[in-house]
C-alpha cells in the first residue's frame, strides 16, 4: 500500500505510536465461545430507564440540532451544581465548563490546549492506556512514574519530584485509578499538591470513577487548597450512570484553559451529541438513587472477588474504588500476557494483562467485577482450576 516514492503516507507520530495491547486481546477473545469476560472496562448495568426515556423524549420533541459548542447551558449549570453539591468545587457554567464526547475527548482537548512541542507530561504507570498516546499526539512527551505495589499503586509526592525536569508542564492523575482501583485520600492529595504548587504544574485530574468509591468519601483534587486554579477536572457520565455508549463527558477548570479547549472543540467537534446531553441532564437531576444502588452492588461484588482471589492464592489488596481488582500473578511464574492468554485458552476467562497499562503492570492482571455475581462466581472457579493445574 505504500506509495512508490515514500515509505508511508502516515504521519511519523502516528506510525510510531504503539498499538494498544488491549486490541490484541480483544481479537483473541472474540474468536472463542463461552467466554466469561472480566476484561470489560465498563458497567454491566444498562443505563437507568429514566435517562433513556428522557433522551427519547428529547428526540420526540425535535431536539435534533447542534447545541452550543460548550454544551447546553442547562446541562453546564447542572454539572456546576453537581460538582458544588457533591465535591465542594465551584465553576461558572458560562466559561468554566465544557461538555465533551466522553472524558476521553476532554483529556485530548486539555492536553492540546496546554502542551507545547517537546514539553513533558507526567503520567502514572500502571494507568489508563490512553494518557501517554494522547500526550504524544498533542506534541508532548509522556514521562511515566512507576507506582509501587507496596504503596497500593498510589502516587508518592517524592516520585513527582524525581520525575520533574525543566520541561515538565503537567501531570495526569486518576483517582480512583484504572486499572488498580486505588483511591488517593485527602491527606495524600494534600501532599501531592505541595509538590505541584512548588513546581507550578498543571494537573489533569481524571475523576471519572469519583462516584464509585466504597470506603472513604471521595475528595476532588480541585477541592484541595489552591489547586482549583491549576486543575482541569475531567469527568463524565460513563461509569457512574452506566452511560459508556452515550459518549458524554465534561471538563471544568480555569477560564483560560476551558476557553482554549472550547476553541479546539468548536473547530474539530462542534458539540457533543444533543440526545446524549438530554439524557445527561436527567442523569444529574434524577439519577442519584440509581447511582447509589449500582454502587452498593459494585461494593458487594468487590468484597466477593477480593476475598475469593486471595483464597485462591492471587494476592490483591482491597481497592477503594472503580470496579477493578489488580491481583498479583507473580506466584505462578508466568508473565501477565502468558497468564491472561493461557487462562483464556484453557478456561475461557478473559482478563486484561497488567502490562497493557504500563511496564509496572507486569506481574498483575486486571479483573473487572462489573459482571453478574453468577458470572463472577463461575469465573473464580475457573481461575482456581487454572491455577491448580499450573
Amino acid at each position, binding site marked *: 500500500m505504500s506509495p512508490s516514492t515514500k515509505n508511508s503516507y502516515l504521519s511519523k507520530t502516528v506510525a510510531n505510536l504503539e498499538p*494498544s495491547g488491549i486490541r490484541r486481546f*480483544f481479537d483473541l477473545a472474540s474468536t472463542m465461545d463461552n*467466554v466469561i*469476560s472480566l476484561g*470489560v472496562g465498563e458497567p454491566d448495568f444498562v443505563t437507568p430507564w429514566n435517562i433513556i426515556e428522557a433522551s427519547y423524549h428529547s428526540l420526540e420533541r425535535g431536539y435534533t440540532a447542534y447545541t452550543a459548542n460548550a454544551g447546553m447551558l442547562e446541562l453546564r449549570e447542572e454539572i456546576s451544581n453537581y460538582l458544588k453539591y457533591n465535591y465542594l468545587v465551584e465553576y461558572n457554567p458560562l466559561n468554566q465548563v465544557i461538555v465533551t464526547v466522553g472524558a476521553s475527548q476532554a483529556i485530548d482537548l486539555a492536553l492540546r490546549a496546554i502542551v507545547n512541542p517537546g514539553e513533558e507530561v507526567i503520567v502514572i504507570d500502571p494507568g489508563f492506556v490512553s494518557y501517554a498516546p494522547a500526550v504524544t499526539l498533542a506534541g508532548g512527551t509522556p514521562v511515566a512514574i512507576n507506582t509501587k505495589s507496596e504503596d497500593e499503586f498510589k502516587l508518592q509526592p517524592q516520585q513527582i519530584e524525581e520525575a520533574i525536569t525543566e520541561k515538565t508542564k503537567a501531570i495526569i492523575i486518576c483517582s480512583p485509578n484504572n486499572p488498580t482501583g486505588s483511591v488517593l485520600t485527602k491527606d495524600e492529595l494534600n501532599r501531592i499538591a505541595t509538590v505541584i504548587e512548588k513546581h507550578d504544574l498543571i494537573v489533569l485530574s481524571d475523576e471519572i470513577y469519583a462516584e464509585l468509591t466504597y470506603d472513604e468519601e471521595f475528595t476532588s483534587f480541585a477541592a484541595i487548597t489552591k489547586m482549583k486554579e491549576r486543575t482541569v477536572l475531567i469527568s463524565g457520565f460513563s461509569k457512574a450512570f452506566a452511560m459508556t455508549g452515550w459518549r458524554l463527558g465534561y471538563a471544568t477548570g480555569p477560564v483560560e484553559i476551558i476557553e482554549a479547549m472550547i476553541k479546539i472543540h468548536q473547530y474539530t467537534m462542534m458539540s457533543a451529541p444533543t440526545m446524549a446531553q438530554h439524557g445527561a441532564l436527567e442523569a444529574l437531576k434524577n439519577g442519584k438513587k440509581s447511582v447509589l444502588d449500582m454502587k452498593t452492588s459494585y461494593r*458487594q461484588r468487590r*468484597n*466477593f472477588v477480593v476475598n475469593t482471589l486471595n483464597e485462591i492464592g492471587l494476592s490483591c489488596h482491597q481497592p477503594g474504588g472503580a470496579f477493578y481488582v489488580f491481583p498479583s500473578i507473580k506466584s505462578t511464574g508466568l508473565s501477565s500476557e502468558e497468564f491472561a492468554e493461557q487462562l483464556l485458552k484453557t478456561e475461557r476467562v*478473559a482478563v486484561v494483562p497488567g502490562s497493557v497499562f504500563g511496564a509496572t503492570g507486569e506481574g498483575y492482571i486486571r479483573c473487572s467485577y462489573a459482571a453478574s*455475581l453468577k458470572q463472577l462466581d463461575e469465573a473464580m472457579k475457573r481461575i482456581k482450576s487454572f491455577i491448580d493445574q499450573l
Partner: protein
Amino acid sequence: MEEKELELLELLETNGRLEVATIATMINLSVEETKQMIDKLENEYAILGYSAVINWSNVLEYEGVTAMIDVKVTPVRGAGFDKIAERIYRYPEVKAVYLMSGAYDLSVSVEGKTMIEISRFVSDKLSTLDTVISTTTHFVLKKYKHDGVIFDEEDDDKRILVSP
C-alpha cells in the same frame, strides 16, 4: 434496623438462593454472624419465606388465569376492614389482598385454572359475603413484570469482550 441487615434483606429479596458464605463475603461479615442475622430476621418475621419467581407462561403444561378484583365493602364497626379481608384471604385461590385508598376498598388477586373457575369464585363466594357491596373483575392478559422482575427480559451482555 442495622445497615447490614437491610443489605442482607435486599440481597435475599433479589436472590433467595444466595449461599450464606457468599452473602457473608459480600457484606463483610463472618459466615457465623450472617447465619445468626438470618435466624434473627426469620424469628422476627422480617423474612417470611423463600420462593422462586416463575414465568408460568413458559411452562408448557401449565394453564392458569389470574384476575385482579376491585372490591367495595362496608367496614364493620370495631373491626374495620380487617375481618372482611380475612374472610377473603383465607381462600387458598386468593394470592394477594391489599387495602386500597381511592375508588374501591380491597384489591384481591385470584388465581384459577380457567375463567369459569374464577367467575364461580366471584359470584358464589366473594359477592355473596354480607359486607361486600360490589366487585369488578379484571382478567390478566399478560404479565410483563412481577415483583421487580421483568419477564421475557433479554439477558445477553451487549458489551464488547475486552475494553480499556
